[in-house]
C-alpha cells in the first residue's frame, strides 16, 4: 500500500534523496580536504566510495516502489505500444473478450436485480418470509407462501422474536379519480407494512396500525411515487383527495418514498390499501378474518439479537397450539381424520428474504443461472481464443523474446510482460463489454415473462456492475495470458536461439489442446442450444390442444364496477348477444378462469362410480359456457357438451353443485381424467362431488369427455373437470373466434362492450397466439439466447481454429515450398494442410474425446 502511495509522491522522494546524497558528498569532501587531500582528488574519492550516483538512485527507487510495480508500468507502456502495432490481432482479441464480458455482465445485471438485489429498505438482511409447510386445509387465492390474515395478526404478537410482522397480497382494482376508471395494480397490506419495512413517506403519511383495525372502516390509500407522478402529474395537493376504488370512495393519505417499489420485483403496485378494506378491493371477498382462507404472504423483521433458527424453534410451541386450537373450531368437522392428521403435522417455515417476495425470482432464478453458466462458457471460449492468439503472436515474437532472454531478462519477467499484454487487452475488452451490456440487458428484459417486470428492471450500469465487469476482466486477462506466459518461461534459451522460424512442438501441442477445449465448449453450447430449441419447437408443435389462429380472448371485471347478481348476468348476456350478432365474429364462449396464464383453479374431487373414491391429486377445474369447446375447436370425444339447461345457478366452489331445471347437475371431464381414474371404463354417468370432505355428495353426472387442452401452460397435461358457468360461478373471460383481422375484431368487440356499459374497462385483450408466446416466454428466452450463444461460440472457435491453422501454415511455408519444388501438386499440398487441420492420429483421439465430452455434457 505504502509503495503504491510512493508512486504518487515519487518526485518529492527523488528530490529528498538528491538533497540527502548531496549533503553526504559535501560533508565527505570537506572532511577529506581537511585531512589534506586536494579538492579534485577528494571529489574523485567520494564518487568512488558512493559507487555511481545513478545506480544508487535506481537501487533506492526499487526500495520505494518495489520492483514489480515499476516493471508493471514499463510493461504496460510496452504492451500498449506493441498492441497498437498489430491492430487486426488487437481487434480480434478485444472483440472476443468484449462479447464474452458483455454477455456475462448483462446476465449478471439481471441476476443481480432479480435474484441477488436486496430491497431498498432498512436492513433487508433481517427480513424473513413465513411459510406453512404441510396441509393448511384452506382455500387458496394467489400463488406461493400463502397464509391467512388472522395468522399474521397472531405473529404480530410474537414480539420476543420480531421487531414487526406484516402481510400483503396483490390484486387489481378499478381505480378512478372521477373520470374513466382504470385497472390498477394494488397491494393489500397490514398496518405494519410500511413501519416494518422502514419506508418513509414522500408526502403526507403512510398506513399505520390505526388503518388496520375494523374491516371496512379505513377507506384510505397510499400512492406509489411513480403513480403519483404519472397519474396525478405530481400534484402537491394530492393528500386528502377523494378517489374511487371499485366504486368505493377512499381518501389519499400519502405518497411513498420514490425508491420504494413494493417487495416484488416483478409486480409493482401503484396503490397500497389497508387489508381491512379487502372486501371493497376484491369484490365478493368476505373471508378476510377466516383462518381457512389463505391469500397473503407474511413477512417479518427479526430482532437484532435473534437468529433465524432461534425464531423458528421459538415459534413452534405457539404454532402447535394454534393448530390444536384450529381443529376445535366448528368449521373443522367437515375434514376427515386423515386430513386432520396431516394438518396437525404441519410446521412453520422461516426463510431469509432480503429480496422480499417475488414471483419473478421464483420462476426465473433457475433459467437465469443456466444462461449465466452459458455466458461464462462463452467467456471461457473468448479466453481460450485470446490465449490461442497470444500463442500465435508469441511465436511471431519469438525472436524478440529470445533476444530479450539472451540480454538477461528473466523468464518470469518475460512471462509477466505477456500477462500484462493480456490483462491490458482484457480491460479494453471489458470496457467495450460494459458499453455493450446495457443494450444486451434491454434485449433480455424484453424476453421476461412478466410485463410489469419492465417497470422495475433497468439497464443502467451501476458500481456493482462495474466492479463485476472489472473483476471478470482481470480474471479473463490472467486466464488468457497464463498459458502463453508459462510457455515463454519454459523454453530453453539455447534452443530458442538456435531455432529458426519454427517453434518447439510443445507450443503446438498446447495450441491444439486449446483448440480441442474450444471445440468441446462450442459443442456443448451448440448441443444445449439445439436441445432448448427442440423443447420449444416441440411445445409449439404440440400446441395447447386447440387451434389458436383467429382466436382472441379478452376479460372484463364487472364486479369491480359494482355489478353483481342479476344485473351482472344481464350485462354478460347483453355482451354475449352482441358478440353473437356481430358479423366479424364466428363463435364466442365464456370461461371462469383464463387459460395459459400459469394458474388454475384446483381442488380434489370425490368420484362415485360403483365405489366411492377421492382423486389422489388436485384436479384442475374451470367453469365454462355452452359452446366453449366448440369455440376453441376442442373435440368432445364422448357424451355431449353443456347446454343452456346445465348453465343455471352454479354455486361457488366447495359448496354443493347446481341443480338444473331438469334436476340434473352436469360436469365434463377430459381424456386425462378418464385415463387416470376410470382406466378403460366408460365414465359417462358416473357422479362426482367437489372437495374431499366425508359429507361431499357426489351428485354431478359426467355428461361428456373432452380431449386434453392446456390449462395452466402448454407444457402440462393434467386431469381437468369443467362445470357449467352460472350466475354465482360467473365467468368474465371471453374466448372469441373471429373472421378477418384481429384489429377489426377488436374494434367490433370494443363497440359491443361500450354499448353494454361505456365505463367498463377491458382488463386484457390478446390473441391466443400471443398468449401462447407469453406462456412460453421462459422457453423462448432459453432457446433464443442459447442459440445466439451457440452461434457466437461457433464464431469464436472458428476464429480460433483459423488462427491456429494460419499459424501452422506459416510455419510450414519452407516445407511446402520444397514439396512444391519437388513436384507435389497444388491439390496434394491442400490435402496436407487439411489433414493437419482434421488432425493426425494423436489428434483424432483428442477430437473423439471432444465429441464425447460435448455429447456427454449435453445429456
Amino acid at each position, binding site marked *: 500500500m505504502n509503495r503504491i502511495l510512493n508512486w504518487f509522491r515519487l518526485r518529492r522522494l527523488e528530490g529528498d534523496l538528491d*538533497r540527502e546524497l548531496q*549533503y*553526504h558528498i559535501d*560533508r*565527505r569532501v570537506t572532511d577529506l580536504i581537511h585531512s589534506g587531500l586536494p579538492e579534485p582528488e577528494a571529489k574523485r574519492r567520494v564518487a568512488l*566510495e558512493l*559507487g555511481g550516483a545513478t*545506480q544508487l538512485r535506481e537501487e*533506492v527507487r526499487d*526500495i520505494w516502489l518495489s520492483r514489480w510495480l515499476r516493471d508493471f508500468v514499463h510493461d504496460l507502456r510496452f504492451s500498449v505500444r506493441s498492441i497498437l502495432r498489430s491492430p487486426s490481432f488487437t481487434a480480434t482479441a478485444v472483440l472476443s473478450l468484449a462479447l464474452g464480458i458483455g454477455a456475462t455482465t448483462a446476465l449478471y445485471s439481471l441476476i443481480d436485480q432479480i435474484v441477488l438485489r436486496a430491497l431498498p429498505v432498512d436492513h433487508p438482511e433481517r427480513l424473513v418470509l413465513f411459510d406453512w409447510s404441510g396441509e393448511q386445509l384452506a382455500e387458496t387465492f394467489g400463488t406461493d407462501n400463502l397464509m391467512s390474515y388472522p395468522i399474521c395478526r397472531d405473529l404480530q404478537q410474537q414480539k420476543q422474536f420480531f421487531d414487526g410482522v406484516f402481510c400483503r397480497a396483490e390484486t387489481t382494482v378499478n381505480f378512478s379519480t372521477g373520470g374513466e376508471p382504470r385497472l390498477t395494480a394494488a397491494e393489500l397490506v397490514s398496518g405494519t407494512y410500511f413501519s416494518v419495512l422502514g419506508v418513509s413517506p414522500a408526502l403526507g403519511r403512510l398506513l399505520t396500525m390505526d388503518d388496520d383495525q375494523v374491516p371496512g372502516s379505513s377507506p384510505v390509500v397510499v400512492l406509489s411515487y411513480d403513480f403519483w407522478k404519472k397519474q396525478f402529474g405530481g400534484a402537491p395537493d394530492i393528500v386528502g383527495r377523494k378517489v374511487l376504488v371499485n366504486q368505493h370512495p377512499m381518501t389519499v393519505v400519502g405518497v411513498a418514498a420514490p425508491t420504494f417499489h413494493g417487495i416484488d420485483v416483478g409486480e409493482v403496485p401503484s396503490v397500497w390499501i389497508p387489508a381491512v378494506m379487502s372486501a371493497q378491493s376484491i369484490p365478493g371477498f368476505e373471508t378476510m378474518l377466516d383462518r381457512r382462507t389463505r391469500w397473503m404472504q407474511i413477512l417479518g423483521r427479526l430482532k437484532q439479537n435473534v437468529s433465524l433458527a432461534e425464531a423458528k424453534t421459538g415459534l413452534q410451541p405457539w404454532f402447535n397450539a394454534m393448530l390444536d386450537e384450529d381443529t376445535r373450531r366448528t368449521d373443522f368437522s367437515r375434514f376427515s381424520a386423515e386430513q386432520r392428521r396431516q394438518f396437525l403435522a404441519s410446521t412453520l417455515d422461516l426463510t431469509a428474504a432480503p429480496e422480499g417476495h417475488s414471483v419473478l425470482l421464483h420462476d426465473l432464478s433457475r433459467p437465469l443461472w443456466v444462461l449465466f453458466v452459458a455466458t461464462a462458457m462463452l467467456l471461457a471460449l473468448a479466453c481460450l481464443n485470446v490465449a490461442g492468439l497470444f500463442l500465435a503472436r508469441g511465436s511471431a515474437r519469438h525472436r524478440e523474446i529470445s533476444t530479450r532472454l539472451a540480454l538477461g531478462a528473466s523468464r518470469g519477467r518475460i512471462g509477466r510482460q505477456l500477462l500484462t499484454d493480456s490483462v491490458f487487452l482484457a480491460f479494453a475488452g471489458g470496457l467495450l463489454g460494459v458499453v455493450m451490456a446495457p443494450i444486451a440487458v434491454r434485449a433480455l428484459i424484453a424476453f421476461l415473462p412478466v410485463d410489469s417486470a419492465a417497470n422495475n428492471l433497468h439497464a443502467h450500469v451501476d458500481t456493482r456492475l462495474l466492479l463485476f465487469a472489472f473483476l471478470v476482466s482481470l480474471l479473463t486477462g490472467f486466464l488468457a495470458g497464463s498459458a502463453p506466459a508459462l510457455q515463454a518461461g519454459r523454453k530453453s534459451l539455447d534452443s530458442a536461439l538456435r531455432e529458426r522460424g519454427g517453434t518447439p512442438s510443445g507450443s503446438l501441442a498446447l495450441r491444439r489442446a486449446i483448440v480441442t477445449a474450444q471445440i468441446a465448449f462450442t459443442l456443448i453450447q451448440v448441443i444445449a442450444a439445439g436441445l432448448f430449441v427442440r423443447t420449444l419447437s416441440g411445445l409449439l408443435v404440440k400446441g395447447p390442444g386447440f387451434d389458436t389462429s383467429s382466436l382472441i380472448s379478452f376479460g372484463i371485471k364487472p364486479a369491480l364496477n359494482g355489478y353483481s347478481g342479476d344485473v351482472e348476468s344481464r350485462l354478460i348476456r347483453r355482451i354475449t348477444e352482441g358478440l353473437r350478432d356481430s358479423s366479424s365474429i364466428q363463435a364466442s364462449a365464456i370461461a371462469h378462469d383464463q387459460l395459459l396464464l400459469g394458474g388454475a383453479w384446483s381442488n380434489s374431487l370425490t368420484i362415485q362410480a360403483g365405489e366411492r373414491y377421492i382423486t389422489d391429486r388436485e384436479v384442475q377445474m374451470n367453469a365454462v359456457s355452452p359452446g366453449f369447446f366448440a369455440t376453441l375447436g376442442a373435440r368432445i370425444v364422448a357424451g355431449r357438451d353443456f347446454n343452456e339447461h346445465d348453465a343455471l345457478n352454479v354455486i361457488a366452489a366447495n359448496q354443493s353443485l347446481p341443480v338444473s331445471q331438469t334436476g340434473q347437475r352436469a360436469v365434463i371431464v377430459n381424456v386425462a381424467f378418464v385415463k387416470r381414474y376410470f382406466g378403460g371404463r366408460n365414465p359417462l354417468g358416473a357422479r362426482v362431488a367437489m372437495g374431499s370432505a366425508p359429507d361431499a355428495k357426489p351428485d354431478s353426472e359426467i355428461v361428456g369427455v373432452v380431449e386434453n387442452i392446456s390449462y395452466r401452460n402448454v407444457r402440462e397435461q393434467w386431469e381437468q373437470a369443467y362445470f357449467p358457468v352460472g350466475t354465482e360461478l360467473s365467468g368474465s373471460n371471453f374466448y372469441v373466434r373471429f373472421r378477418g383481422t384481429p384489429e377489426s375484431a377488436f374494434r367490433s368487440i370494443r363497440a359491443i362492450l361500450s354499448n353494454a356499459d361505456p365505463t367498463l374497462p377491458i382488463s386484457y385483450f390478446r390473441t391466443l397466439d400471443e398468449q401462447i408466446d407469453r406462456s412460453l416466454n421462459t422457453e423462448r428466452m432459453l432457446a433464443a439466447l442459447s442459440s445466439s450463444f451457440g452461434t457466437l461460440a461457433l464464431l469464436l472457435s472458428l476464429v480460433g481454429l483459423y488462427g491456429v491453422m494460419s499459424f501452422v501454415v506459416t510455419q510450414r511455408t519452407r516445407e511446402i515450398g520444397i514439396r512444391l519444388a519437388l513436384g507435389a501438386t497444388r491439390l496434394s499440398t491442400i490435402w496436407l494442410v487439411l489433414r493437419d487441420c482434421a488432425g493426425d492420429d494423436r489428434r483424432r483421439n483428442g477430437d473423439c474425446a471432444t465429441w464425447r465430452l460435448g455429447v456427454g455434457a449435453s445429456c
Partner: protein
Amino acid sequence: MPSARFPIPQGTLDMLILQILSLEPAHGYGIAQRIEQISKSVVQVNQGSLYPALHRLEQRGWLKADWKESETGREAKFYSLTRSGHKQLRSEKDSWVRLTGAVQLIFDEGAAQ
C-alpha cells in the same frame, strides 16, 4: 595476513544502523562516521549500500526521518528509531549473540583438541 579494515559482513549493516540510531538520531554521513569511530576504524561502511539500507529500513517502518538542522548549520535528513525499530534491534541482537556464541563453541571445541 588479514587487512586491518573489514568491510561490514553481509546482513549486519542493518543491525549496526539500528544500534547507532538507538543511541541518538543521526544523518547518513553521521552514521557512517559513528560506526568507523566506535569500531576504531576496523569496520568500514560501504557508503554505496548505506543509503539503500536506510531507505529500506524506513520503508519497513523501523526508522523515521526528519529534516533538521545539522551541526554544520545545513539541513540534513535525520533518522531515528521507531518503536518497532527498537523491537527489531532487540531481536537482531539476540540472534547475533546466539550465533556468535555458537560459533565460539565450535572454535572452543577445535581449540580443546
